[in-house]
């Protein structure tokens, strides 16, 4: 802690996703960007503890929708998450109800 290596900005984008969320409604699928799911204007407003450090954290990331009792339809995600070793593909079939099933794919080349 007192003698630290200089790693400034190493973690700037770690835990942030790019890709798309999809709400599977009866009258058709609705695609949402990550910022639309968060209802934030920018990732700068996202607290560190809302970032995605493991696949199951997607539920915390999407808490605005998952915790809304009016949203009962399935929410899925396809995209990538920033890690210290680069982008990793991330897929979740049901973000809110089956967070443990979210899984990484291969790291991007």
């Amino acid at each position, binding site marked *: *802690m*007192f003698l*630290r*290596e*200089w*790693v*400034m*900005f*190493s973690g*700037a*984008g*770690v835990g*942030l996703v*790019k890709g798309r969320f999809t709400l599977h409604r009866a009258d058709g699928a609705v695609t949402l*960007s*990550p*910022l639309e799911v968060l209802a*934030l*204007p*920018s*990732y*700068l407003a996202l*607290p*560190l503890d809302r970032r995605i450090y493991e696949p199951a954290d997607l539920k915390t990331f999407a808490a605005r929708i998952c915790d809304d009792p009016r949203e009962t339809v399935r929410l899925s995600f396809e995209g990538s998450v*920033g890690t*210290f*070793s*680069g*982008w990793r593909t991330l897929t979740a079939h049901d973000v809110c109800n089956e967070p443990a099933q979210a899984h990484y794919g291969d790291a*991007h*080349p």
Partner: protein
Amino acid sequence: MSPISIASERVADFMRWGADARGSTRPLGLMRIAISIIVFVRFGNEVSLYQGDSLWFVLLGLAFFGLTSMMLVGYMTQAACAGVALTLMTMHFYMGHMLGHPGWVSHHVYLLVVSVSLLALSPCGRSFSWDRYRALTQAQHGQNIPPEYGDLWPQRLIALQLAALYFWAAVDKTNWSFLSGQRLEQAFIWPYMGRELEPVISLGAILPVLAIIVVVVEYVLAFAIFVRRWWAFILPMGLALHAVFYVLLPVNTYSATMMVLYLALLDPDAVHRFLDRIQGHGHSPHRL
């Protein structure tokens, strides 16, 4: 010359440059003023008295404003700098790392802690300070005027800190995830997603090129900042790098701090003479 005598000569040169260095204290005085303003700007709002949710936090704010003001004007300068350093250490190590105060564990805060700590060990109050003004008014008929001159080993340590920072920053980036542009893209996504310049984060093939340029520049700066004959090219390049960081990314006070610390690289006596010259004292013999 034998290798041993060449090595001992190099060590002697290094000691003359480092531990034994003496010279004008004006660059240190300028750094003290600028760093204290940066500390004010960085923390003033966060430790203002209306932010206090406990007596302890109010006392921290009082200490912060009192000591930083003393550092700025140069009153009891070394004690003030030591007090600011201790205050910043408390905020960074105790409140940031141990209590989890958001934002106070950042590396730009650590850089301020190191800078103020080294200034506290230096004679930075001998120039541009209330201490100097008092000493001048107390000096009798031009006698016993304290010289703007002193030990510069803390200034050399600040310069070495700059080099270490560049070197380890480059080492941290020397891997596929950065050089391929992925981590740079992540760094851009953080501030730019949802903004007007969002297309910047999908620069495609340009990102790896930018990433490689950043790493090469940091490795070069780590060593080249000490090569005086390269300064005309290297120092503007370093300053430009930090200006670009400041404009493109939310680096907070990091860029401003680094730019100020570049004063530690310059020849102190040349800075002294330059300040004499721009104040119109160029034709009178300058005194250090």
